[in-house]
């Protein structure tokens, strides 16, 4: 196997697996850890997850391809996910998306050439009271307008 975890991650994974009476049940949390460590769940990561949990790669692929949060290709350092569901759209999500597209020069599904940003649209994030909203990695940002987006994106490391 070519992928290697840090010792710390190994321990985390052992702890996760111990939380379930059946190893396979740890698949989602283990995939989250793998994605955090390697940035994606491509074929190699699938094989790694399969061997950790003693299941087939087919079963891992079934799961990886079902859930939207597993990135089968690497995303940029910052993954911007703009909500395109009802409330956010009512509150101007389309303009927000356009603005980000222009600002970064990419369309949803694309990554900037410096691998800094990936842009996606997503379904409801559960932050409708602050629509329009988006996630940058796992940080929620609401009440978006052009100014706020500039402030958020320009202040990232």
């Amino acid at each position, binding site marked *: 196997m070519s992928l290697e975890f840090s010792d710390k991650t190994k321990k985390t994974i052992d702890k996760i697996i111990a939380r379930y009476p059946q190893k396979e049940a740890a698949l*989602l949390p283990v995939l989250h850890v793998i994605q955090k460590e390697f940035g994606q769940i491509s074929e190699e990561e699938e094989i790694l997850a399969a061997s950790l949990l003693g299941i087939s790669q087919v079963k891992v692929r*079934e799961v990886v391809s*079902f859930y939207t949060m597993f990135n089968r290709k690497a995303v940029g350092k910052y993954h911007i996910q703009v909500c395109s*569901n*009802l*409330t956010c*759209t*009512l509150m101007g999500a389309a303009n927000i998306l356009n603005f980000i597209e222009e600002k970064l020069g990419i369309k949803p599904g694309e990554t900037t050439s410096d691998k800094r940003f990936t842009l996606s649209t997503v379904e409801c994030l559960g932050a409708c*009271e602050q629509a329009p909203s988006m996630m940058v990695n*796992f940080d929620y940002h609401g009440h978006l307008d052009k100014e706020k987006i500039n402030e958020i994106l320009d202040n990232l490391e």
Partner: protein
Amino acid sequence: MKEKVLSEHFSIDNFFKLDVYLKHNGYQAVKKALTELNPEKILKEAKAANLRGRGGAGFPAGVKWGFVPQNGDKPKYMCVNADEGEPGTIKDRYIMTHNPHLLLEGIIISSYCVGINTAYIYIRGEYENIALRLETAIDEAFQKGFLGKDILGSGFDLDITIHRGAGAYICGEETALLESLEGKRGNPRLKPPFPASIGLFQCPTVINNVETLANIPSIILKGAEWFCALGLPNDGGTRIFGVSGMVKNPGIYELPVGTNLKDLIFKYAGGMKEGKKLKAVIPGGMSSPILKADEIDITMDSDTLMKADSMIGSGAVIVLDEDTSILDVLTIITKFYSHESCGQCTPCRIGNSWIKKIVTRISRGEGKDGDIDNIARLASNMVGKTLCPLGDAAAMPILSIVKKFRDELETSIK
């Protein structure tokens, strides 16, 4: 000021921390339940409180617990549904962010009641930061002996694990949630058997929504009678209504079950934004059939909304103003359900996609005569014929829109 069960302390700084929580009567309910009450008494109280599930289906929580067989030798599990994916819904996020220990208390008491020693909180994957906060709260509770072995000397053990989803609306459906928790695709299971008898890992399982469980501590402390009196006789307590869309003050409003929808929008949420006229309201999350402006003088409770051919669902109110294009709404709804269909059963997989394709074509300006009829026909062909409730959840709002806004939709075709 109305009495608040869940959100009373939301504004207190660091309320999510155990030491602050303890200063405000924290874990008194757990203490009372585990040291003064027995499981039978708790079950009786929960039933008497008429606490209806806050996740969407509105099934009485106490009755649900009562379905779990008490004499098997298999372990029993508690699954907390924190998947909050119903568009418009924000309440569980607030509870978990601001009052995580209240939820933990609810889990401890209900697990004690049903005889459960292992609980999982299935939280939507996007809520990573909240999952971390819950994780910390669990650690704190362990340290203080509210979780773990022999809680408060009662002999009762409980362990709680946070399990993050990974982006699938369907996992809010309880059997899909179980599949997902078992490390599989979120395909809903055939019922029967029901999770109460065969659930997680083939064992008896209770699945409750976050808000539902967060009500339990107050019921224990103040009694079922008090709780019922807050709301309606057969639909007790308060609800955290999430109001979003074209209102002045979008946000959460904890109000009694049975609060008037009109009041919710105009009194509490400040009325329409920019003085626009109200066009329609989606009263209980996207799956609930739409109400026209003249239909909103109605109380927000399970039975009344059902009578109005809609549903209270998750209590997520989405407000549409006069500028809203109903075709846009329909487009977003059909896109959403088509995207979120798990794909295993025929009517939902193909029906949703088909309807989406028609609606998308209409919004490209390529609509044709008969399209609206066809949408209604296809949606009707989904109703009651799918394996899980997602088929109905998609078809019902579509049908209500077609019925109530047909004229407007037809104009998009001509």
